[in-house]
């Protein structure tokens, strides 16, 4: 018993508590000089839901194209499903392998501490898609999700002439999407003629989005508009609206511009797409990393020592507004 007590006390003495607050010294923000260059130069992208077609066709394709153009190694890692803790685990393991640069999909504020760890290890770290403002990331490129919500809200107000019932679909619990929902509601609240009949979780699933939409159309025969916030909301809403024979009568706005979205715009099922410029996230994100590693633009005698990041710290890549008027330009791109 005494031995056990002694062992417990020793364990407690050896226990190291986490720091109260993350250090704010500029040294943390600097880039290691020992980063591998030349043949070993490698840039690693870590995302979640690595198999999502939108990620493969836009983010990953542009990143790989960038790697081929610059003759450096690029790797794409991440769990197959939407699993933020798994993404964190992979980033932790990648840090130990010391890549030249890390390009991280800003999936959730919870990845902030691991981004700080990468930065503290001297690895140039760029966040794309959604920002992680609570982190020490060197740079961010992406979309403002609040703006996506506002854009859909304004379009819906215009399409409905300021009155009618609407509903919106997306994935619950994701920071980016909840921000988008807020943007939409902030626009709508100024138009008392517009009634929001519900917020629905389609779990990024076409069948689920279609099921929710058809139920909504039955429950509210006077439903005037639907807004979608994830990549699969649009195709699901489109399917149900077509099956119910309500094309053009129910106005639809949604995000992203995969081939199926564009086709639905051409058919007049979806009235507007709020498209993200995803290729720019990863192409310029990788370029930022490269410019940090190669110190392409020196701003001082020694940027690392001065605690300077020599790339833009925050870039809003903006949104594409795709309607029937310009959809062919995207289909035949």
């Amino acid at each position: 018993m005494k031995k056990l007590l002694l062992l417990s006390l020793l364990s407690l003495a050896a226990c190291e508590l986490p720091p109260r607050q993350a250090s704010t010294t500029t040294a943390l923000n600097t880039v290691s000089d020992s980063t591998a260059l030349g043949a070993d130069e490698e840039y690693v992208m870590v995302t979640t839901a690595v198999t999502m077609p939108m990620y493969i066709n836009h983010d990953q394709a542009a990143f790989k194209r960038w790697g081929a153009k610059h003759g450096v190694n690029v790797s794409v890692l991440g769990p197959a499903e939407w699993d933020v803790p798994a993404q964190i685990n992979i980033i932790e393991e990648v840090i130990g392998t010391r890549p030249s640069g890390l390009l991280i999909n800003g999936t959730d504020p919870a990845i902030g501490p691991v981004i700080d760890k990468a930065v503290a290890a001297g690895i140039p770290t760029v966040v794309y898609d959604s920002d992680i403002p609570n982190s020490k990331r060197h740079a961010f490129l992406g979309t403002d999700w609040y703006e996506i919500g506002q854009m859909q809200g304004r379009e819906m107000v215009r399409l409905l002439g300021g009155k009618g019932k609407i509903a919106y679909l997306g994935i619950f619990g994701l920071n980016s999407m909840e921000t988008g929902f807020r943007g939409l509601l902030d626009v709508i609240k100024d138009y008392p003629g517009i009634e929001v009949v519900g917020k629905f979780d389609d779990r990024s699933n076409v069948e689920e989005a279609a099921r929710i939409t058809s139920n909504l159309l039955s429950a509210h025969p006077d439903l005037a508009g639907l807004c979608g916030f994830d990549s699969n909301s649009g195709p699901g809403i489109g399917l149900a609206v077509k099956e119910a024979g309500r094309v053009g009568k129910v106005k639809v706005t949604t995000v992203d511009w995969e081939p199926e979205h564009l086709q639905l715009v051409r058919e007049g099922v979806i009235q507007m797409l709020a498209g993200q410029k995803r290729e720019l996230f990863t192409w310029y994100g990788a370029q930022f990393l490269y410019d940090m590693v190669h110190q392409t633009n020196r701003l001082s005698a020694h940027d690392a020592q001065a605690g300077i990041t020599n790339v833009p710290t925050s870039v809003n890549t903006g949104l594409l507004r795709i309607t029937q008027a310009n959809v062919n330009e995207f289909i035949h791109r």
Partner: protein
Amino acid sequence: MRQLVQERTYSLTLTIVLIGLGAALVFPQTFPTFGNWSQLLLNLSIDTIVAVGMMLLLIAGVFDLSVGSVVAFSGGIAAYTMMVYGIPVPVAVVLTLIGAGLIGAVNGYLIAYQGINPMIQTLAMMGIVRGGALLISGSGIQNLPYWFNALSQSRLLGIQMPVWYMLLIVGTFAFLMNKTVFFRRYYYIGGNEQAADLSGIRVKRMKLWGFVLTSVLAGVAGMLLASRLGTALPTAGRGLELRVITAVILGGASLSGGHGKIIGALLGAMFMGLVSNVMVLTRVSGYWQDIILGLILIAAVWSDKALQKRGALA
């Protein structure tokens, strides 16, 4: 030798050692380092804690699909009570464990006493509890109290605490399952439920407690995850139930019950963590991992069957 191959804990340990040696030879700079191993263990600690409960249930011939949702829910409940009601950390921890235990009690009661199929009951509970987690946490509750975060973010001998909790839980349950009459009864229940019942074992009550314990362990895992991330994520633990069942089956459990050792849960999770780690080092993307793990699972179960057949013939 045959016995060595037939006993899953030995064959799995051997496989882990072989993969480890191979990886150490190919990646001498990055694989056999303290940093990589402490990270690898940390990454599998949450799954392993849940896997211990799942192993116990599978030994008794049942399983629980709601554990992943309980992980998200318990992180959310702890965060919500601390952040919204300002409840002190220890009280929030206890309340969360009681909450998780109650979910297990509902599962256990309806399955053991009302005869609802475990798959249907826990599948329904998975949805109910995930919905609850989303209601509580919204898009996630951040900036959790320092002492709550310290539960997972502190280190002992340079290794983060969840690894120690995992070892403690595995050690405790391995001891209980080996040495105590109460826990050994789960083997009899899984082996032949009717015979266990006739021999005077209170099968229903034992099953109820099995679900309660599993849920409490998932509650512990959920709090440790939230504490590690400093955030309660409503999307945490998605797909965890199947990952954990895979680990436990790899570790020697059988869906028909009566088989398995607690240490097998750790070994199964460690094997999966090792495969995942090697894939990160080789820069192989996520979807290959699922394919590879699926193939390994089939190979493991199939080789068991083949060995059993040969054993029966010999």
